[in-house]
């Protein structure tokens, strides 16, 4: 559900498109019909819902139909990248978008600059939900100009640090997850731990996969990332970005890196064979690990350095093309309600975005046997709670790739850190 594939096909390609094309096809939309429908309960309505994987919504649709017998719900699913590129094209050309669309965290910034492409959920009374939500999650769904509420959050992807107890034991480091978490409240301490790991000379294993994901986590933990409050790109001048970059360089310099870029096939193999001992781990990466079948208990989960974080998680939005915004708004209100989110957590391990649920025993006491009975409900929700909101601009994904590539050039010995930084800034200029 909250899967984020940041490095791949131009996640932010929407941005150019939509920012420039605000006025392109805004057109008249079908606003009139929504309110009219309420007066005529007999009218048959079809709502389409476009998702990028199985969100386990089927039982919730049935629930919705009990109160809305005249509504038929059709779900469409597409592959992750395709889903979002389709949506961009549909909004641009003014046709073909579903009534309800899922937009993942990595893409949401591409759509918030163009509130005229979506129904304002405030018009349907959904701003009443604000107090229930994690603040940063709520803010992600607000348009850049702050005028409109475009999306309601579904799940979040709380951040943790996955580690291999077997390799930690060989290195003479503690293996219990609380002790491991205590090793690295900060990124500096994380690197110090890595140096101890290196000093122990564990055969065939490095301390971590590569610097890219650490860089990303650290930037996203900062109050300000690649964009300032007015959505200007400040990646080159923001000291937080440089700090994260220097931390990435240290990971390389200290020999902590296995030089494996995340989500590549060799990286998958590394997870299974244990060629690295730690990696930055959003909630949904537990699924990625399990897919590689490293064996039960091979990986465990500790807290992420730097205090919390998030990667991924989804919003539900209503494109302006939809003819029945009132019913669609009622549907997403139901899909994101407390009752639904707790059901989805049990059903699909989707981490709720409503902090009130974090004390629910179903969440707080949830353990995952594949990860040594790690209390993932608690670890990931703690991380999500600790995160501060940050302005995410339309091309954050491309900017991240520019820096990630730069760190890899350092790692591969092609450039020194200053050259790689300079080229990364040049690449950032090109995406602006």
């Amino acid at each position, binding site marked *: 559900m909250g899967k984020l594939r940041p490095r*791949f096909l131009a996640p932010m390609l929407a941005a150019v*498109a939509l920012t*420039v*094309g605000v006025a392109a096809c805004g057109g008249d939309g079908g606003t009139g019909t929504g309110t009219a429908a309420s007066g005529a309960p007999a009218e048959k309505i079809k709502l389409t819902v476009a998702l990028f994987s199985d969100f386990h919504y089927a039982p919730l649709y049935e629930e919705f139909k009990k109160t809305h017998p005249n509504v038929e719900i059709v779900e469409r699913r597409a592959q992750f990248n395709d889903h979002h590129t389709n949506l961009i094209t549909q909004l641009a050309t003014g046709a073909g978008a579903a009534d309800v669309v899922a937009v993942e965290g990595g893409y949401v910034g591409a759509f918030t600059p163009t509130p005229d492409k979506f129904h304002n959920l405030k018009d349907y009374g959904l701003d009443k939900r604000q107090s229930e939500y994690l603040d940063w999650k709520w803010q992600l769904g607000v348009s850049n100009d702050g005028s409109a509420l475009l999306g309601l959050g579904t799940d979040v992807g709380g951040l943790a640090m996955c580690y291999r107890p077997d390799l930690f034991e060989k290195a003479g480091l503690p293996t219990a997850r609380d002790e491991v978490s205590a090793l690295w409240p900060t990124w500096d301490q994380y690197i110090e731990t890595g140096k101890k790991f290196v000093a122990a000379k564990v055969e065939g294993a490095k301390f971590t996969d590569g610097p890219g994901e650490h860089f990303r986590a650290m930037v996203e933990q900062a109050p300000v990332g690649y964009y300032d409050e007015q959505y200007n790109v400040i990646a080159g001048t923001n000291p937080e970005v440089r700090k994260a970059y220097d931390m990435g360089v240290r990971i390389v310099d200290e020999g902590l890196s296995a*030089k494996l870029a995340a989500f590549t*096939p060799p990286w998958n*193999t590394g997870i299974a*064979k244990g060629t690295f001992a730690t990696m930055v781990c959003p909630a949904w990466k537990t699924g990625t690990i399990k897919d590689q079948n490293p064996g039960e208990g091979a990986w465990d989960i500790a807290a992420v350095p730097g205090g919390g974080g998030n990667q991924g998680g989804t919003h539900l939005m209503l494109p302006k093309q939809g003819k029945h915004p009132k019913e669609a708004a009622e549907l997403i209100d139901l899909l994101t309600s407390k009752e639904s989110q707790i059901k989805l957590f049990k059903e699909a391990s989707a981490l709720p975005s409503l902090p009130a649920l974090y004390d629910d025993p179903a969440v707080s006491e949830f353990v995952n046997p594949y990860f040594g009975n790690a209390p993932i409900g608690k670890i990931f929700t703690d991380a999500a709670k600790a995160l501060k909101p940050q302005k995410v601009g339309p091309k954050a994904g491309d900017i991240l*790739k520019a820096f990630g590539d730069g760190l890899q050039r350092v790692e*591969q010995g092609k450039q020194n850190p200053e050259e790689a930084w300079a080229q990364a800034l040049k690449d950032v200029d090109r995406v602006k």
Partner: protein
Amino acid sequence: MATRAPDRPAAVASGEPVRPRRRLRRHLVHQLDVKGSPYAYVAPFFLLFSAFGLFPLAYTAWVSLHEWTLLADEHPFVGLDNFRTLLADDYFWNAAFNTLSIGVLSTAPQLLLAIWLAHLLNRPLRAQTFFRVTLLLPNVTSVVAVVVIFSQLFGRDFGMINWMLSWFGVGGVAWNEGVASSHAAISIMIMWRWTGYNALIFLAAMQAVPRELYEAATIDGAGSMTQLRRITIPMIKPTIVFVVITSTIGAMQVLAEPLLFGSYSPTGGVDRQYQTLALFIYENFVKLDFGYASAISWMMFVFIVVVAGVNYLLTRRTKGGLV
């Protein structure tokens, strides 16, 4: 239209002059049939070609003169600005160099190998069809499958090729990191897919070479290699020219291999070390920067024409020619 009617009675009334006129008309129709019909028969191709070949070519040229992003309302005319930017763009020249390098590395050994394979098969063999079909098999394999599997073979830590190299004391080559190593890896993937295909074309040409030439040469004491060099290659030169041109064009347009090699990334490696021109177009295309992508497309077109032309002249000038 209505004015047509009075003509006819007038013609009938005149009586006599009808016949030569009718003959003339028949003659004209016949002429038209003989001269015009062939064009009508080939017209469907050219209509389709205009719609799907010529028009896009012209339209791309038009787009390349504008600042054109997909969803923008306005596409201001910027003249040759895109080309000016392009010629000053390091990444463009980098892609051009990579394309040429991968092109040479893949095409030259591939064609030599194909001629040699065809030569081996151009003799009475058991199970001829089996060998010929086998040659074509890599070509019908999906390019994605080929690249995915080769990427695994070229893996740094657990790849088979590095494992084999380790027997000789060469360790841990990171194939997709270096310029030379990544170009070599990609060239091998291209060769894997196309060598057999080209060998079959050469083989077809070789079979048209008169047997007597070989018999005479054998009597004169020429060995197999001499026969290949002195008879076969000169005799199939038109085919070689053709294959060189098509392979050159193919090599200049390589996209899938570098796109899928390592990780799926339109930059072709973190240092763009194996980004080809086609991939560079793709990168700008997915950014929806159609103006710039079109300009690159046109530059690539020019490149292909130049390189194919040079190759044509080179191959034609090579010595030989029995006839």
